[in-house]
């Protein structure tokens, strides 16, 4: 087939790109991921019984803001990495700043604690990270499919970024189930849950995000 004939076929299929740009597609992914994680929490993990009083406290919202910020960092990174020229700089800076600030608060809290190990373990340290990974993994895989329809030039990084987006969203919804309320616990186990989703996205993305 001559290239000119191919161009004719392409022109006949022209016009605005179907499905919208990276921003719209990734925002849709985040909303879908939140709904999916919510179904998971409601049907599988159950909402924490003290949700109403907890929502009156500051840390409930601080925890949600932290995990949201991690997800936002993933979004900012993947929104760029899904383009052939994109740099994840903005997302990376936001993620490191937020994790650094939360980690610092956790280190101070740990230093002041009577029993640091008990604070680190909380009541659910062995489940927390795995639960977040379980809630975020489907959205991570779906996110890889979304990113595959875009144009990532660095598949591993783009996969990790979309995993961080999915993990941040899942961890935020997981806060409806989990009653842990220390900087130490959230800073370690929640962050690890988001990192686990990012690692999953990065590993699968390395071979799945070729186009």
């Amino acid at each position, binding site marked *: 087939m001559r*290239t000119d004939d191919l*161009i*004719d*076929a392409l022109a*006949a299929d022209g*016009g605005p*790109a179907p499905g919208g*740009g990276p921003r719209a597609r990734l925002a849709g992914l985040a909303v879908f991921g939140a709904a999916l994680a919510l179904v998971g929490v409601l049907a599988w993990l159950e909402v924490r019984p003290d949700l109403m009083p907890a929502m009156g406290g500051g840390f409930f919202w601080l925890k949600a803001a932290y995990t949201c910020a991690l997800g936002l960092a993933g979004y900012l990174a993947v929104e760029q990495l899904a383009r*052939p020229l994109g740099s994840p700089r903005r997302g990376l800076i936001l993620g490191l700043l937020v994790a650094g600030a939360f980690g610092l608060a956790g280190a101070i809290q740990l230093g002041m604690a009577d029993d640091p190990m008990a604070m680190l373990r909380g009541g659910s340290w062995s489940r927390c990270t795995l639960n977040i990974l379980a809630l975020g993994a489907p959205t991570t895989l779906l996110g890889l499919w979304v990113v595959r329809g875009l*144009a990532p030039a660095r598949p591993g990084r783009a996969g990790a970024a979309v995993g961080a987006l999915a993990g941040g969203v899942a961890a935020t919804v997981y806060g409806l189930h989990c009653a842990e309320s220390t900087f130490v616990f959230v800073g370690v186990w929640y962050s690890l849950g988001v990192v686990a989703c990012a690692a999953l996205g990065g590993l699968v993305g390395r071979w799945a995000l070729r186009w």
Partner: protein
Amino acid sequence: MTDIETRLKALMLRGLEGDAPAYRECLSLLGVRLRAYFARRMSGAPGDVEDMVQETLLAVHLKRATWDATQPFTAWAHAIARYKLIDHWRRCKIRQTLPIEDHEAFLAAEEHDPGVGLELDRALASLPERQRILVSDVKLVGLSLAQAGARAGISEGAAKVALHRALKALAERMRHADR
């Protein structure tokens, strides 16, 4: 050089608004330059150049949502071409490095001979008959999408969907073809 950027960008913007002739011109202009770009870098395999041009044009078309209109169009198109070339070398197990050059140099030369790609024909042959008819029949000057659809026995709306699916399938199959 900035002249071609201005021209391509204006044509691409019009194309994204649904101006098919402008979009066609944009892809044609890009095609002659892609041919020169790949020819210079694939001197060991001149037969593959046209396949790469066609695969890159397909990618430019299917991935156009990732072009940010506030950015230069040629820089984006160069990034697509560069990715496709590195991917091609990776699949052929060729170890070679490609410097990140100025994207202005990317479009410096033209190579007009509108060659024939073998890989595209092979990929096309593996499509369902209806899609194959559509892709090869649709012409801006010849058959319209509605006419091509009628020949394939489907409505214009169905032809539009089928053509898009066919192009996506072509891009996928060309990539998986062993060169």
